């Protein structure tokens, strides 16, 4: 009866499974980046797919090396990626919405369009106030112009 297990082989097999699944997730994310019709859908695909794929690949490497120092570095990379990837995606998406990047024509945009019209109406109301206040006092107009330029 053979009870000794070859742990090297077990680690190699587990590491291979993790790395192949992670590379598959990154391939799916890349195909989604190339094939999806819209900027926002593309960004959703690559944010989720590449983060999960990178985490799986890093865990595969940590399983193969089997040392506490390597595991600590891998956990640092995973934590940093999981914190910063949604932040970066949110900033880029907000910038795209503010720049008016076009949506896909099949996207359901009813509530978002109501929000945008309300937003733009508020902005126009504010601009009207500035133009109404402009000829009354020249100094306040200069101050408001500086503030608007800084913002």
């Amino acid at each position, binding site marked *: 009866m053979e009870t000794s297990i070859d742990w090297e082989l077990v680690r190699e097999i587990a590491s291979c499974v993790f790395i192949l699944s992670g590379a598959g997730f*990154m391939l799916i994310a890349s195909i989604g980046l190339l094939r999806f019709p819209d900027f926002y859908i593309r960004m959703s695909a690559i944010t989720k797919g590449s983060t999960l794929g990178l985490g799986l690949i890093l865990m595969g490497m940590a399983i193969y090396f089997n040392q506490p120092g390597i595991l600590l570095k891998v956990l640092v990379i995973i934590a940093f990626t999981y914190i910063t990837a949604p932040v970066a995606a949110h900033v880029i998406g907000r910038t795209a919405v503010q720049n008016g990047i076009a949506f896909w024509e099949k996207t359901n945009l009813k509530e978002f369009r109501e929000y945008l019209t309300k937003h733009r109406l508020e902005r126009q109301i504010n601009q009207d106030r500035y133009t109404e206040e402009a000829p009354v006092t020249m100094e306040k107009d200069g101050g408001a112009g500086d503030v608007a330029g800084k913002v």
Partner: protein
Amino acid sequence: MSIFQITLIVGIVMQSVCLLLTAIRFAIGPTLPDRVTAFDLFVANVIGIIVIFTELTNNEDFIDVAIILSLFGFLGSISFAYYIMRITK
């Protein structure tokens, strides 16, 4: 060459195909935010290639490169987003 090394090379080849598809999107991207997200995926793919190369060569020093690269990828995408926000206002 064992099956383990062949599997790692297959993983590197898959990551290289990812880099090729991302480069196509980077070339034909209609707008600037498309290119910024493609750059984000570039950085993630390069980190994956570095990690698999570390495992292939059994050299533990390359993991620091992955740490620094993940940090600079975040800084790059944030600064590109700030740049896009500034040039259009």
